[in-house]
């Protein structure tokens, strides 16, 4: 029993979350509809925005989410990786994006590419685990080349596989480098790196007259189930935080004072209990924003919620997400062009939290400004990168941070020095 409790603590209760997600696969529909739906998901081109709830149904989507999560949990265990903040965020991001773009079929070639890069560099594969966990945001390129081009499978499969492997091989060096562009103030840094790659892929495909803006409708039919699931997960984390450490409320304010700038590992820096409390609170805050704005939960929105929760261990907290989310909402209210009725805008309200470190470092109002700018840039970023990078908000956030941070650092440096002095 003690071993079991220790195991759950060490793994930040991710096995419980997996069981919860997996059991929901069988909540609605028959087994045969689950299988049919799952095959439809695997065969989908998966480019932004492909809502697997619409494509495969609820059971098949939950099966996709939970099995991908399980495979990654097993991989981390086999490699004897600790459940650090980045690992936790990676797992939740994978789960989140398995609602709209990631599946077992399109992620494997990218993992293989990173494995080959690690071998080429003569380094342990596990030392690239952060990149591995976030790498599959570009997995739609694999699915598109196989199922979206109209090529016969004997051409599509090898081409998709090879491009996936090459992508994985390039990504570790590129993503380490892109951190410098935004100085660590874009939490979805790998999304920015993948945006650059996606831009190149879409340019090539455009040159050969391929149509790849294939995103389809979303499904809000399962709003209630997903709402309850989020409440349940959030409460599990909050209760676990108090069970682990009764003094957690006293320790939490220290975490709130962190800027959240890359590479912040909240589990390492502040402990498991304050981090779990943070994760749970972020889940509830996400729901609160959605309720106030009247946004119903579909696959991409659920992906946003899970990603925000995951990054509760890797840079986001209650104090630094609210300003950027507020800025994003303001932009949609003020703009006559952009509205929350569009799926891209409704998920951007959640994914704008990639810029949370800007609010954490430079304050509330700068955070609001960053969120505002982010919303305006996001649709352009999508046009630019073509939809193969699922982390489009990470691509957009990279530009926002790169534009704001050098100037903000220049004008705040003296004040900060004196204050710390």
């Amino acid at each position: 029993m003690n071993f079991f409790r220790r195991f759950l603590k060490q793994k930040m209760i991710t096995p419980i979350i997996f069981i919860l997600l997996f059991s929901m696969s069988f909540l609605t529909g028959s087994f045969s509809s689950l299988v049919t739906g799952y095959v439809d998901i695997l065969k989908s081109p998966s480019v932004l925005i492909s809502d697997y709830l619409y494509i495969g149904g609820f059971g098949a989507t939950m099966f996709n989410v939970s099995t991908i999560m399980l495979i990654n949990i097993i991989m981390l265990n086999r490699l004897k990786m600790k459940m650090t903040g980045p690992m936790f965020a990676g797992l939740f991001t994978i789960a989140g994006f398995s609602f709209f773009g990631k599946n077992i079929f399109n992620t494997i070639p990218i993992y293989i590419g990173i494995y080959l890069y690690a071998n080429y560099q003569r380094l342990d594969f596990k030392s690239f685990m952060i990149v591995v966990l976030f790498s599959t945001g570009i997995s739609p390129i694999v699915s598109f080349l196989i199922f979206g081009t109209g090529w016969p499978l004997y051409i599509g499969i090898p081409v998709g596989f090879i491009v996936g492997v090459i992508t994985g091989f390039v990504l570790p060096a590129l993503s380490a480098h892109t951190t410098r562009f935004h100085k660590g103030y874009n939490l979805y840094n790998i999304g920015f790196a993948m945006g650059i790659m996606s831009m190149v892929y879409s340019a090539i495909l455009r040159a050969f007259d391929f149509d790849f803006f294939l995103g389809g409708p979303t499904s809000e039919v399962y709003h209630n189930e997903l709402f309850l699931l989020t409440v349940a997960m959030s409460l599990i984390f909050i209760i676990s935080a108090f069970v682990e450490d009764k003094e957690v409320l006293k320790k939490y304010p220290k975490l709130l004072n962190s800027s959240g700038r890359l590479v912040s590992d909240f589990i390492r820096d502040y402990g498991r209990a304050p981090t779990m409390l943070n994760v749970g609170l972020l889940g509830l805050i996400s729901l609160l924003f959605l309720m106030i704005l009247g946004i119903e939960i579909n696959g991409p929105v659920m992906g946003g919620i899970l990603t925000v929760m995951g990054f509760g261990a890797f840079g986001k907290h209650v104090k630094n997400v609210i300003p950027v989310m507020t800025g994003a909402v303001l932009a949609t209210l003020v703009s006559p062009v952009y509205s929350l009725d569009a799926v891209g805008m409704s998920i951007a309200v959640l994914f704008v939290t990639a810029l949370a470190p800007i609010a954490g470092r430079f304050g509330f109002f700068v955070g609001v400004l960053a969120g505002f700018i982010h919303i305006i840039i996001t649709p352009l970023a999508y046009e630019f990168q073509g939809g193969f990078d699922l982390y489009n908000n990470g691509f957009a956030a990279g530009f926002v941070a790169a534009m704001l941070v050098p100037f903000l650092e220049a004008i705040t440096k003296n004040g900060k020095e004196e204050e710390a002095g």
Partner: protein
Amino acid sequence: MNKLEMRIISKIIRELSLFHLLHGHADFTLRTKINEEETAFITTSERLKDEALKTVKEKIERERELEVETYGWELIGDIDDKSELEIVGHLIDELKIENTDTQTTLTFIRKNQYKKKTKA
């Protein structure tokens, strides 16, 4: 030593220099001792305030994480305030502090974890 390790070492040197400059130290030295097993970065400056020492200890004396190193090493050397040492903390194995009435010597030890798997 491989090229990646060299670049990481040079970035740590930059970050430790910046750390002292942000603390207003006009007179400090930074020495390195590099061998097959480890790299030591030794800084000597006027005595650091107790609060600053506490911050350094807190941020450096944490377990090294290789996965953070390969992902975030390019951000080292780019701190913006004197308490930002988190990333370099991920890359250092050991910290020794020697304090006298007038000066502080900090020794940061980084074990060479790449030597077995990398070509010389």
